[in-house]
């Protein structure tokens, strides 16, 4: 095989110049307009969307932090209130108990006093009764004794004498 030793690529051919111009300008116009521009727009839009989402997330985070702080404040206040209420309740309870105790004591005292009085009354009644009974019994005994002793004249005289003696003594 033989070849012309011709470095033809360095010789710009008119046809190739013409067609390259046509094809490159087509490339630039068509792909530029229908592909590169939309891709650029798409990328820009996505960049914007991402930025917006990030901003939104940041805002949401800040809001959350704010809300959390508020919540904590509320919680602290509530806790304080609860403590206050509890304290008051305890005081009230203590007071009530103390009052109740006092009352109970008074009541008890009164009851005891009543009981004592009644006991005294009963005792007095019992004593009176006992006295009456004793008196009656004494009389009966005395009657029986006297009857026995005064069966003869001599004994009657002695007894009268005794009585008289006793009287004198009194």
């Amino acid at each position, binding site marked *: 095989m033989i070849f012309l030793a*011709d470095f033809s690529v360095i010789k710009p051919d008119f046809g190739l110049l013409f067609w390259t111009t046509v094809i490159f300008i087509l490339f630039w116009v068509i792909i530029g307009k229908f592909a590169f521009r939309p891709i650029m727009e798409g990328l820009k839009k996505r960049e914007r969307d991402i930025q917006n989402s990030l901003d939104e997330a940041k805002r949401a985070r800040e809001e959350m932090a704010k809300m959390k702080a508020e919540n904590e404040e509320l919680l602290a206040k509530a806790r304080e209130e609860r403590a206050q209420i509890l304290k008051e309740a305890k005081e009230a309870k203590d007071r009530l108990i103390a009052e109740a105790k006092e009352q109970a004591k008074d009541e008890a005292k009164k009851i005891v006093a009543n009981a004592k009085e009644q006991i005294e009354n009963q005792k007095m009644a019992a004593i009176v009764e006992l006295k009456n009974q004793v008196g009656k019994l004494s009389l009966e005994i005395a009657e029986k004794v006297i009857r026995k002793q005064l069966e003869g004249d001599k004994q009657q005289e002695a007894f009268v004498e005794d009585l008289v003696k006793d009287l004198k003594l009194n």
Partner: protein
Amino acid sequence: MRQYVLTLLLASMFALVSFGQEHNGEQSHDENATEETHHEEACGEHGKEPFNPGATAFHHISDQNIYNIGPFHFPLPCILYSPEQGWSVFSSGVFHADAHGNGHYAMDRYVLVEGRVRRVVADDFPMGKVELEGHPFFKKVEQKDGKPIELAHVCYGGSQYAADNPSTADGGLFGGGVTSFYDFSITKNVVTMFLVFFLMAWLFITVANAYKKRDGMAPKGIQSFIEPIFLFIQDEVAKPFLGHKWERFTPFLMSLFFFILGLNLFGQIPFLGGSNVTGNLAVTMVLAIITFFVVNFHGNKHYWEHIFWMPGVPAWVKTILTPVEFLGLFIKPMTLMLRLFANITAGHMVVIIFVGLIFLFGKSGELAGASYGTAVGSTLLTMFMMSIELLVAFIQAFVFTILTASYIGAATEEAHH
């Protein structure tokens, strides 16, 4: 660090290019010596030439009017204009090309030599479709404007006819210039550019739709594959250099980056023709010229002032500075053009030359042992080279884009003193 690696890569690329060219220079000297005896036997049997890796590489990196993928040859539409005979439009299938892209037929005085359409200038050559004779072509060095130029010759009716190369826009600087016809065909490179254009359009419009469809959702699939690359160019290239004006120029920078990257990578795919599109000066020239216009069209007062009448320097310095700055206007896009071209061309050539070593050391199959031995080494070297080329594909697309961004940034920068 990246700067350092880049410099190293650039240096090695240029070294390889110059190696390739030197090498080729030697080869063509040898050929010139044998040429005299060779073309005497033209139109008859042709002798066997030694394998020439340089010329093979030049053939493989050049643009073609036919698309070869392995054993398949896809004919492409030819759109040709010559001031003499007007427009001719036909399929390159009419040439009945062989595996090397040499046609066995001529059509309206156009012939296919090494995959390129060339035109027979002679008036006595018939119009219409005619069969060529003998070997499809031979080459002869002729003098044109005092410079030696290698021209293909075809045989018809027992005589030889010289065939003109297509016109090129180098103004004779690299051995081209305006010839008898212009080739506006849909060549292999044009087909590749269209393929990359449709591939990229499909890819990016799919991704753009995904942004609409999956609004407010995480990226998925192909979208998440493209997004980091897109964002890299947007955030690391457009925004730092262009400031608040980044949105206006990002589509242009993206177009540059993905057009170049797509073409670089497409040329790297093995067994798909290996189109060397961004390694063709015409392509990089168009990109550089468009960049030049975009930069200077948006240049503000501040920018032009700094070019033509640099503020704050003595008048005699201005007389030096103004021409330098003015030249810089054109040198900047020119470096863009050459850098991309040289890197990609060098990459393609190195790969072809490594493969060519197999045929060189094996003497085109005569020494089977040497062929096999070299094949192993060459395969490893080629694989290594291709992985570097993959890196270069990204780096060059990135460098072109970031430099363009910096030029636009400098042109649109607000005054601040």
